[in-house]
């Protein structure tokens, strides 16, 4: 079988829209929202929301149908219909992040909360929590895993979920930090948050479950809005849960616990599937920033007469030309890994390894390319009059959230070498 590098026509057409939005709506306010960290880009939000509602509606409808008809099968004729959802998503995200990665993160959508509910939610939960993203005012979804004592080491999560048998409610207690869209999802819209908590600390990961908390639930309080190095347009909040009561049906996955040592509980493992889609999304965002910086630098240098003679021998190239060539190669490599991880998911094949690979590679690539651009452009690169220095600041987060570069490298190593989490950490 030949290797197919063509992007389907329908995906290309759809990415025209986000290209236009990135150029004409996002770019021009990029600096403004970098300098006004806690303001919201309403013009973008209101513009994109009708389109997001359509996507959310189609995605919800498809996932409810898939449940009825079996995975990936079109209703009726029983023929497999290949989804293009993830490949469309990464194109959208790459384009929007080319415009501005922080503003892209302000996109009203179910986001990571939606991905978690799609991964393990029941049809009823999907209806209850995701239908709101198909109508009404803009809404946000957020996912809160990280705590002051639990970043990379998620097994150390301290937030507890206790069942109150009298009211049949879960009672959440604990603190979550660095929640992307935490304020937007919990108190600025009728959004939802997926909160990771433990039912039994002694069981480590096997005791952990995600829970859905709806905006405005008493006992959930935003205690801090972060001030950040990059993606300053993005809302990053700390949230405290104090006797926060949610209905029994808001647990994602089975509430039953297994003993330590037994096979990891399916509920937990299932929910970790969220990363199979979220890591390609982060990789795509990284590639959007990298492309913005690369294109700008290439075009600026070209205007000064520095172009890349692609047919020249290596020894004939100047150092700057070599740098540009290397950057372009890295950009393509990162993007191809990202596309592959998304396409595998669309095909219903395992992609955890590829998702981590794409995430590691693109996190490194975007960090390196943006730093190199600042360097090559000299004073222009360092000046706040242009966006190059901003792209350098926006880049780093992609090497941090959804598993740091080191953590994703560990995952890749474990998967390739066949080690367990215990054997290689």
């Amino acid at each position, binding site marked *: 079988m030949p290797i197919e590098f063509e992007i389907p026509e329908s995906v290309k057409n*759809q990415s025209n829209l986000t290209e*236009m939005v990135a150029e004409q709506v996002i770019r021009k306010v990029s600096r403004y929202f970098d300098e006004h960290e806690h303001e919201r880009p309403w013009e973008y939000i209101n513009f994109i929301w009708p*389109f997001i509602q359509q996507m959310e509606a189609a995605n919800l409808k498809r996932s409810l149908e898939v449940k009825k008809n079996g995975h990936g099968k079109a209703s009726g004729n029983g023929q497999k219909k290949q989804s293009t959802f993830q490949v469309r998503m990464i194109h959208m995200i790459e384009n929007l992040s080319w415009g501005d990665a922080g503003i892209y993160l302000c996109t009203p959508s179910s986001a990571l909360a939606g991905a978690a509910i799609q991964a393990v939610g029941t049809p009823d939960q999907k209806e209850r929590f995701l239908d709101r993203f198909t109508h009404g005012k803009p809404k946000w979804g957020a996912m809160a895993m990280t705590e002051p004592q639990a970043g990379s080491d998620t097994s150390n999560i301290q937030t507890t979920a206790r069942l109150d048998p009298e009211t049949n409610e879960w009672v959440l207690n604990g603190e979550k930090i660095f929640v992307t869209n935490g304020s937007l999802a919990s108190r600025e819209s009728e959004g939802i948050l997926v909160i990771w908590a433990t039912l039994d600390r002694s069981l480590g990961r096997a005791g952990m479950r995600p829970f859905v908390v709806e905006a405005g639930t008493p006992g959930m309080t935003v205690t801090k809005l972060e001030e950040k190095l990059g993606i300053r347009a993005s809302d990053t909040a700390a949230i405290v849960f104090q006797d926060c009561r949610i209905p029994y049906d808001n647990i994602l996955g089975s509430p039953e616990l297994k003993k330590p040592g037994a096979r990891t509980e399916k509920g937990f493992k299932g929910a970790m599937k969220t990363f199979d889609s979220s890591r390609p999304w982060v990789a795509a965002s990284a590639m959007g920033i990298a492309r913005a910086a690369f294109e700008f630098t290439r075009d600026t240098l070209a205007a000064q007469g520095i172009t890349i003679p692609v047919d020249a021998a290596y020894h004939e190239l100047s150092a700057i030309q070599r740098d540009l060539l290397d950057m372009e190669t890295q950009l393509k490599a990162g993007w191809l890994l990202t596309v592959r991880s998304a396409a595998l998911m669309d095909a219903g094949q395992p992609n955890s390894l590829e998702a981590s690979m794409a995430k590691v590679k693109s996190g490194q690539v975007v960090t390196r390319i943006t730093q190199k651009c600042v360097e090559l452009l000299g004073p222009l690169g360092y000046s706040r009059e242009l966006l190059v220095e901003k792209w350098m600041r926006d880049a780093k987060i992609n090497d941090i959230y959804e598993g740091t570069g080191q953590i994703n490298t560990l995952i890749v190593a474990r998967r390739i070498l066949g080690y367990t989490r215990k054997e290689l950490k």
Partner: protein
Amino acid sequence: MSDIDAKIRRMMADMPAAFNPEKAEGVNAVIQYNLTGEGGSQWQSRIAGGVCTVEEGVAENPTLTITMDANDYVEMMAGRLDGMQAFMTGKIKVSGDIMLASRLMTFFN
């Protein structure tokens, strides 16, 4: 003259009367329509001072340029093609003030 061409001419002629100045308060814009393919043509529409005018041709510095297939345009104006869908699937291409594009339909009855 093709059927599509005739329909487009009629739609363009009807545009000023369908314009609702209350919905477009403060709008001052030149909109260029490039309708391509069979029966296609080019139009420039001016919205200023609560009045909308249309004439055939190419504007010099349009605020907004809308490019789409002539037949798609007819279908959209007839309500058989959803404008949003057309946007999302790349059937409409716009350059210039994209925010204006998203509001444009609301200016007309």
